[in-house]
């Protein structure tokens, strides 16, 4: 008797769970950790406005976004490093790039006793990440920061352990700024890092820097701000030390905005201009050109339209820069390419 009641309850329970499919649309996405703070806010807000549409975004890194999109196990991906022609041709289906926001990679550091904002020359950043500059009181750093007492401690370098668009932006900048970096290491979402500890995601790098004294790591601006970690000014192409800011990022994008290619893939690191912040970048959503599921297609297109019009207002609060108006106009037209 007890056994039959137990089995009945079990069967009901199982059926109940299996049948608990909501009538709504669930979209799975994943990728860049760089814009995760604003994506997380957008998808949450969009779900509140459209409760039957759930866009589940998992911040696992740009490499994840690209790889899983190509494997078609997610509905769309996100990356701060645009897909190369090679990657696009290997995918086997057409993928469209849609820029969402612009952000900045900043060198965040944790030096006990030093609260000032350090100035980093291009040579300094390259040297630190190449492993040629090993101590905080190295000449290259003290020269640029005359008033600051830098300790004679080893620099603990932190980079990404996973395939990362943030790494792509960082290495893209270093390759443009330093020929030794370009020849020895190069640009990419994963590179052969000469030195340093690996952290998973922007979150992991920030977490490691926060915990390790005398460390330095590159993260998206909002991560340093949200975690109250100091970050340095970086010398741009014109030789000016610029603090990462929305204005600096927008200035860097100004040239590209006018001549934006049709597929929206462009690099704005080391951009000319006195106020340009040199380690700026667009970040993209990677969306298949052909989506067979009509409800998913409409949901994604609806989200994109909302993102370009209303979503942009969330940017400032989270320290991302809005897309230039010309880009928004061009993108709105491009949404029709999703069939």
């Amino acid at each position, binding site marked *: 008797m007890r056994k039959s009641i137990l089995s009945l309850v079990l069967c009901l329970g199982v059926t109940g769970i299996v049948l608990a*499919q909501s009538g709504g649309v*669930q979209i*799975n996405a994943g990728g860049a950790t760089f814009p995760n703070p604003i994506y997380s806010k957008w998808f949450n807000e969009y779900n509140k406005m459209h409760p039957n549409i759930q866009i589940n975004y*998992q*911040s696992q890194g740009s490499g994840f976004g690209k790889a899983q999109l190509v494997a078609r*196990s997610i509905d769309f991906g996100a990356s701060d490093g645009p897909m190369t022609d090679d990657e696009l041709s290997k995918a086997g289906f057409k993928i469209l790039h849609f820029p969402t926001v612009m952000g900045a990679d900043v060198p965040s550091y944790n030096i006990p006793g030093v609260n000032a904002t350090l100035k980093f020359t291009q040579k300094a950043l390259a040297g630190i990440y190449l492993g040629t500059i090993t101590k905080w009181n190295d000449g290259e750093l003290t020269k640029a920061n005359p008033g600051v007492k830098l300790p004679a401690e080893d620099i603990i370098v932190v980079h990404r352990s996973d395939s990362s668009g943030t790494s792509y932006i960082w290495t893209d900048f270093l390759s443009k700024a330093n020929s030794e970096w370009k020849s020895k290491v190069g640009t990419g979402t994963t590179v052969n890092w000469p030195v340093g500890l690996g952290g998973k995601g922007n*979150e992991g790098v920030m*977490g490691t820097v926060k915990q390790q004294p005398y460390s330095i790591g590159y993260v998206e601006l909002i991560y340093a701000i949200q975690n109250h970690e100091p970050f340095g000014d970086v010398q741009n192409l014109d030789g000016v030390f610029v603090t990462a800011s929305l204005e600096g990022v927008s200035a860097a994008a100004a040239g590209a905005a006018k001549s934006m290619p049709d597929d929206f893939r462009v690099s704005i690191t080391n951009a000319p201009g006195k106020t340009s912040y040199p380690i700026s970048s667009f970040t993209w959503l990677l969306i298949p050109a052909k989506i067979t599921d009509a409800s998913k297609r409409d949901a994604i297109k609806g989200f994109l339209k909302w993102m370009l019009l209303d979503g942009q207002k969330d940017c400032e609060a989270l320290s991302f820069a809005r897309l230039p108006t010309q880009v928004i106009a061009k993108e709105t037209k491009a949404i029709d390419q999703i069939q």
Partner: protein
Amino acid sequence: MSLRTIWRKTVNVVMLSLTGLCALIAVSALFLILGCLAWKGATSLHWSFFTQLPAPVGEIGGGIANAIVGTGKLLLLAALIGIPVGLLGAVYLAEFASSTSAFFIRYATDLLNGVPSIVIGIFAYTVIVLPMHHFSALAGGFALGVMMVPIILRSCEEFLRNVPRSLREGSMALGASKWRTIARVVIPAASSGILTAILLSLARVAGETAPLIFTAFGNQFWPHGLNQPTAALPVVIYNYALSPYDDWHRQAWAAGLVLILLVVVTNVLTRLLLQREAAGRS
């Protein structure tokens, strides 16, 4: 007493006390772990923690409700695979199998038992996620179920074998067929052992993270059905712990406390169940 004897006696006392010290260290490690988790996590255990969905990144608050439900769903799926295969496989080994097939099945079971959980994750990814083009609770449940099978099978086989022959023979002497004997006599006789095996294996896989990372994926919302990704308690702990947000760290501690309480309580309950059964029988 010679010097050598004094030396031997001293060594005796010293080494024996050292072994006691080793045992003390090993045992206190558990209490240390529980204590740390309780100290860091207990303050976060309030109602909203268990009932709310996670808040957007960087914002304070939110809870792990979907992770708890997700873990529950994964365990249910794992049980649907693990229990039938494990129990019926054990029945086959204990009651029907010839020695050659028994050898091969036991060998395969032990092999499966030793496979690292991340390799099982790879297997579940290639066999379920890739063909389905979907991360899903199904894939995660499959991975966990595969891990449960060897644990359940080995314990159940032993419990079934421990049922005295006299019980079986008595039943058959009364005219029951073999399968009826198994179903109505042997399995009920071993029922508390079987139950403990099931509960212990569930507690074991509830804490597994590695196979879920690329199967169940993760979900910010409530998991729907079997085909969608789902959040799970250990994965949430992992992601939150590695993040830089203090609020997420706090939640990681609390979720860790929930997880370890689940594991400890299950283990204690099963132990009491077995002890009561043994006492009842003797």
